[in-house]
């Protein structure tokens, strides 16, 4: 197989793929509307927000970090962009303001995590509240309307027939996939998540990388905030609430280990799709939104459980197909069994590799 393809698909997410296939098949049977071009594009637009945020979170989480402040960052970036737009009428400045404010929020996360040595969950739980508060302060607690057509176009326009938010999402996924799987930066991100101390002693400036990744995540949340504001036609101070949990769910569905070091962008694309298709399907079928929450959580748990089972089955199959150690070569090809940790160290990973 082409190396790049092998990278994008590994680790194979059998359970998640099956869940997605089952969803698509049953929904197309249940509703003739589901597989129309219009609806597929709708799904794309609907997942753009969580997708952009999940893409950044994928890198943060592969490096062993976590950022739960992104929902608030999206809102803060949105009201920043909208207020700059209303006071200057410059669309370019407004976009820049949203993205830069997001980046600064991410940078601040990175600095308190690396410099003050605060656990990422706790640190971003703190800034989750701080950024939401700042959003209310900037907006005075009310939505800021946007009327400039070029700005609204970011959310509702199309490029070659594809809605702009989806175009932005695809570009973000493509760029991050290349960065993660084909550059030194990507290799170092995996190394930091896999063993931060080893990476540091190998000369990688681990803290700089971490700070950079949180900043990147903030920039992407800022971009998401701008897109959301453009789509809604106003910046809502409560926008993006709970978004961080959807993003983390998508990333975990995609196979990123919570402990770091494992995962791919391709997996996250899959995770985002599952959540998007499910939401869309439940809406088409006019299922009460109260039940949608239960269904979403249920799919997450079932898909990850199926993956775990598949993983264990494959490991057993591989064990059976390998010849006994004694039938194999000389002493320096010794099997790793002596440390007995081939399986022990696997255990803590949520989703395995």
């Amino acid at each position, binding site marked *: 197989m082409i190396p790049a393809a092998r990278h994008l698909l590994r680790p194979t997410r059998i359970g998640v793929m099956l869940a997605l296939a089952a969803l698509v098949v049953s929904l197309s049977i249940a509703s003739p509307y589901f597989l129309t071009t219009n609806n597929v594009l709708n799904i794309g637009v609907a997942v753009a927000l969580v997708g952009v945020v999940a893409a950044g979170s994928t890198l943060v989480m592969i490096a062993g970090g976590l950022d739960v402040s992104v929902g608030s960052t999206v809102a803060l970036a949105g009201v920043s962009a909208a207020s700059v737009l209303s006071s200057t009428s410059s669309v370019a400045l407004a976009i820049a303001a949203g993205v830069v404010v997001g980046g600064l929020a991410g940078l601040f996360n990175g600095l308190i995590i690396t410099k003050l040595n605060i656990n990422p969950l706790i640190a971003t739980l703190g800034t989750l509240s701080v950024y939401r508060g700042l959003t209310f302060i900037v907006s005075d607690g009310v939505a800021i309307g946007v009327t400039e057509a070029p700005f609204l176009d970011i959310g509702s326009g199309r490029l070659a027939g594809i809605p702009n938010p989806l175009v932005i999402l695809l570009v973000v996924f493509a760029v991050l996939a290349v960065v993660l799987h084909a550059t030194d930066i990507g290799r170092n991100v995996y190394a930091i998540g896999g063993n931060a101390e080893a990476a540091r002693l*190998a000369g990688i400036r681990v803290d700089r990388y971490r700070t950079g990744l949180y900043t990147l995540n903030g920039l992407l949340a800022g971009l998401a905030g701008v897109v959301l504001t453009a789509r809604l036609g106003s910046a809502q101070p409560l926008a993006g609430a709970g978004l961080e949990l959807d993003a983390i769910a998508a990333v975990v569905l995609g196979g990123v280990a919570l402990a770091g070091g494992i995962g791919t962008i391709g997996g996250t694309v899959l995770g985002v799709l599952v959540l998007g298709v499910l939401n869309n399907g439940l809406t088409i079928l006019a299922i009460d939104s109260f039940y949608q929450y239960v269904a979403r959580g249920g799919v997450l748990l079932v898909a990850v459980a199926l993956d775990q089972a598949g993983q264990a089955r494959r490991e057993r199959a591989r*064990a059976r197909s*390998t010849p006994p150690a*004694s039938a194999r070569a000389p*002493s*320096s090809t010794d*099997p790793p*069994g002596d440390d*007995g940790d081939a*399986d022990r160290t696997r255990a803590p990973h949520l989703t395995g590799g």
Partner: protein
Amino acid sequence: MADAGSVVAAPAVEFRELSKRFPGVLALDRVSWTLAPGEIHALLGENGAGKSTLLRILAGDHRPDGGELVLPGTGVDVRTPADAHDARVRVIYQEPNLLMDRSVAENVLIGALPARRHLVDRRRLHELAAEQARRLGVDIDVTTRVRRLGPAARQLVEIMKALASDVRVLALDEPTSSLSGRETERLFAILRTLRSDGVGIVYVSHRLEEVREIADRATVMRDGRVVGTVSVASTTDAELIRMMIGRQISTVFATPDTHGDGRGDRGTPRLAVTELRTGSVGPVSLTVRAGEVVGIAGLVGSGRSKLVRALAGAEPLTGGEVRVDGRPVRSRGPSGAIAAGIAVCPEDRRALALVPDRSVRENILLGHRTVRPRLGFLRVRRREVDRVERYLRLLDIRPADPEARVRTLSGGNQQKVVLARWLAREPSVLILDEPTRGIDVGAKSEIYALIRRLTADGLAVLVVSSELVEVIGLADRVYVMRGGRVAGEVPRAEATEESLLTLALGTNQRSRP
């Protein structure tokens, strides 16, 4: 053994045709042997022979895929760690498994904390633990949090914990790897007492001299099978080694006499350390010249490892200077040391050098800026593979697959991956901390030979080791450390175990914690 009713009892443990399969490996292949009560039974074998897997089955941590583990007289079928515990079987692993933020006493008596009206009786707890420490002759404050103890003390806590209740079978995996000579003697005294009390002891070690000192019988394993069980007294080292590796080796060390003669510009100092201080260590001054192998010996706690960490840039210097090829190392942190040309292979490879879930290729190239040529900022995979394959061949890393996950390699091959990473950066100074710890005999001699080859190209090598034989066999000069300082410098000709040990212990043999 038909002598019914006499002291010749049933075996303490009988391993019957045990098999265990891991992904890709048959770790145990119908292993059978018997541990008698009141004997110390050494379990020998190279890395990957299956010793640790066997211990894990004994501890109830792994279930065998085939065969039976029989504990006569207990009526216990070991399926879980709790079963093994009930059968009074204790296994002490190489790496301590302790609650880091609890006190020594709590760790020792965990599971049987003395209680008064359902609350832990702290005074009684400390009394009991202190009594246990006294009984075993361990000098330790039982109220200390485990995190604040060094590796040797943690190992002792692990032993205290195992012996806190009545034991029938005790298994120890390389228990002396972090102990000093005195502590090892203390451990051996404890083991002998247990033996006379009728406890069956399984002793896993790489060190033949220890086995010779303590063990009655030895079972040798290779590639998951039992090669044989022998009486230690009537078997020579050479025979044991032959059983372990399945071939004959004359000596582990490459002939020491071939080095030291007519080597290029020997004499130019490549590493010069002056008055270095870090924490409790220092002042330390030393030099390593081009083409030279310099050893650092010293007991546990003498400051060897801290010195290495300081040279690696992992600990800040509080004074002094490090120069590489005449240029002072100015920038701080590991990346500064690396940029200056210092490469360090740390003692604890898994924790400090490797990313086990990533490929051999990525681990070798870890931290490298670029492999040229490249496409803009994109890596060219083909070039990386070429580069890595060169080192796979040079170091004979097996399997020779750049995409194999490092986790699946044996200890010796993992060490070679770390070496390959540093060699690929063409350093001026290579520092090896315990280069052969946990590595089997065959891979050991390969690594020794490699160190010699490297100095031929003018590399300066600093070898830090707690095994005196290793230091003597490898080094042109040896610095001996004691209490954080250099206690003496010994040229090759005068380096013997006796001379090094005398310096390491000092004239007034006062004990250091």
